[in-house]
């Protein structure tokens, strides 16, 4: 399998890129401005596209080049553009009422990274894969997923919920590129398009929310209780 015979240069390249993606998700936790969140997400998607292309190069999987290009186009350009358009239409600039300050969310995110590292280390130990990039890939995958959930839980803006979901999907994609690059390309293609459809659906719904419910913050959407 690819992760078993990687030369050290490739390993450090992948680890650098994976950790860059993780750091970009922390930018999303730390910043006050929604626009910065989206730029960070776009940068993260491009990073993951570069990882895809590198894995295609080192592992001789030519279809990964196409997937990398599609990721860069759809996840890295179109999705952020769609969400930016939504923000402009909804006229919100900042996440006004987060439950936790950015600094505290960063610390919480660091705790989550440590937790995912522990889990990945245990998994790696049972699979006899310690000291391998697999543990790093698992850590980044789990941490991105947990940070995405953190964003969804601690924020009340609808856009933040969408971004949290996209971060989770990004994390899964990152992990799958490093761990299972041989997964049938059809699956990865369809997942990319699926994401596009989801975001378009979200966009329509959020606009409907704004028009009919008058607000997009989940703190005000409290009509259905019990």
């Amino acid at each position: 399998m690819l992760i078993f015979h990687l030369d050290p240069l490739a390993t450090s390249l992948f680890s650098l890129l994976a950790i860059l993606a993780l750091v970009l998700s922390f930018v999303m936790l730390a910043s006050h401005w929604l626009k910065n969140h989206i730029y960070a997400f776009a940068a993260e998607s491009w990073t993951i596209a570069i990882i895809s292309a590198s894995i295609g190069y080192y592992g001789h999987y030519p279809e990964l080049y196409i997937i990398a290009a599609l990721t860069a186009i759809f996840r890295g350009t179109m999705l952020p553009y769609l969400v930016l358009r939504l923000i402009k239409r909804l006229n919100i600039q900042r996440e006004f009422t987060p439950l936790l300050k950015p600094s505290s969310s960063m610390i919480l995110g660091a705790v989550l990274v440590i937790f995912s590292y522990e889990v990945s280390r245990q998994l790696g130990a049972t699979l006899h894969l310690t000291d391998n990039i697999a543990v790093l890939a698992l850590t980044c995958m789990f941490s991105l997923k947990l940070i995405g959930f953190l964003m969804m839980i601690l924020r009340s803006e609808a856009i933040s919920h969408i971004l949290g979901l996209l971060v989770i999907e990004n994390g899964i994609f990152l992990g799958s590129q490093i761990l299972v690059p041989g997964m049938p390309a059809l699956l990865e293609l369809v997942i990319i398009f699926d994401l596009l459809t989801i975001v378009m659906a979200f966009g329509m719904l959020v606009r409907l929310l704004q028009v009919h419910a008058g607000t997009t913050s989940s703190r005000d959407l409290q009509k259905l209780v019990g």
Partner: protein
Amino acid sequence: MVNFNALIAALWIAPALAIVLMMAIRRPCWAEYLNLGTSVIVFGLTLTILVAVPDAGWVTGEQYILLTPLGAWVLFCVGLVYLLASIYAIGYMRLLPEENPRLHKFYALLAGFALTMLIAPLMNNPGIFWIAIDFTTIVSAFLVGFEREAECIEAAWKYLIVVSAGLALALLGIILFYWGGTFVFGPTYALTWANLREMAPKVPESLLLLAYLLTLVGFGTKVGLAPMHTWLPDAHSEGPAPVSAMLSGALLNIALLGIYRFLSIVDSGGYGLIGHTALLVLGVISLAVAGMFIVRQDGAKRLFAYSSLEHMGVLAIGFGFGGPIAFAGAMYHMINHSLTKSLMFFGAGNIMRAYGTKSMRKMRQVLRYYPVSGALWLLGAVAITGAPPFGLFLSEVTILRGGILSPNPWAVWVMAILLILIFIAFMNHFREMIWGAEAEPGEAPTLKLSVWNTLPMWLAFVPILVLGLWWPEGLWGFFQQAFMVQP
């Protein structure tokens, strides 16, 4: 030899064609009857597939399509509920004249929803199964938010967010399963249920269990098991009544099928006890949460949404007990629940439109104004809480029987007590609605229910009565066969 390829192709092409036609011809009455015709065709095809399903799992369509007895059964439930909901939708949507210009979109979405639900149980590839379920979520979210009111949109939004987050977890689980398989099969292999079952014994326990728990929680969100059920009351109560029936009666079954298939993977890995117990615990929690919320419930459709939560809990317990008896009970429960839940949602839709309110407190003396519908509704309430002589009683008792023989007999007691509790709470609500204090004179309902509103209730009611009094021998044999082969 039945040509399954042709059957399945027809099954998918019919709704697709209907959607195209409906969007092209934008007249509401064309859309209504196109949808009705499609649902009849779909029902017939699913019935044929069920009757003719081969004894073992059957793979076709370039390894992408899988036909198993359990899958065919779930497909049949989908077809049945789609037919009933289509008949009812004609009557229900005619009560909403303001929606007339958008009605073709509604029926197109309904047919699209049915199409995605018909694709999912037949998928051999867990990844594509996941994608199909994701598509069902998107389409049904638009259906739930169809009436453009604030609460409907809010419900659709919560539905989409919570379920998408859950499904993302499930995707992570599927990736971990595939990764486990790469240790056995090499870096590239086809992702199918059979391959995953084959690799399960050779993969370390922690990876297998982690992946299974992720998919359990992920697809459990889609099924609506507690504590991931928070979207369920909102989505099922705010959508139009036919949509609620399809959501409760058809979609939840498909997600449960997915959970059961992953459970079988863990089974073949040798960790079946943990897997079954996890599912069982989720089912018990769902039952408990449902019981608590049913006791103090005011909205009519919300009450039935919590009842869906209860029955999904019972199904999860049934599958979680393991063993052929509980499995047979769970399968029988699926069809009974689909029929009864449709009946209840149709009745609720009728009564809500008649009284003009969602609150049960304002619905009084139902039998006086609507003797036929009211009686059917009352009998349906008796049925849905699991009382004899209706079908759900038989299936629940079978599950309890299977539970006594299982490794987790404590759940039998919990389930029985909670079911009794829910029965009492339900009957309390209906007692008030039927024999409660007289409403204000000006609030007497004056709506006349057409045959389109009451016919589906009869169509749903009669089979429950029949299935409750007589469990066909052929069905029992079919359930046993479904248990033996791969799900």
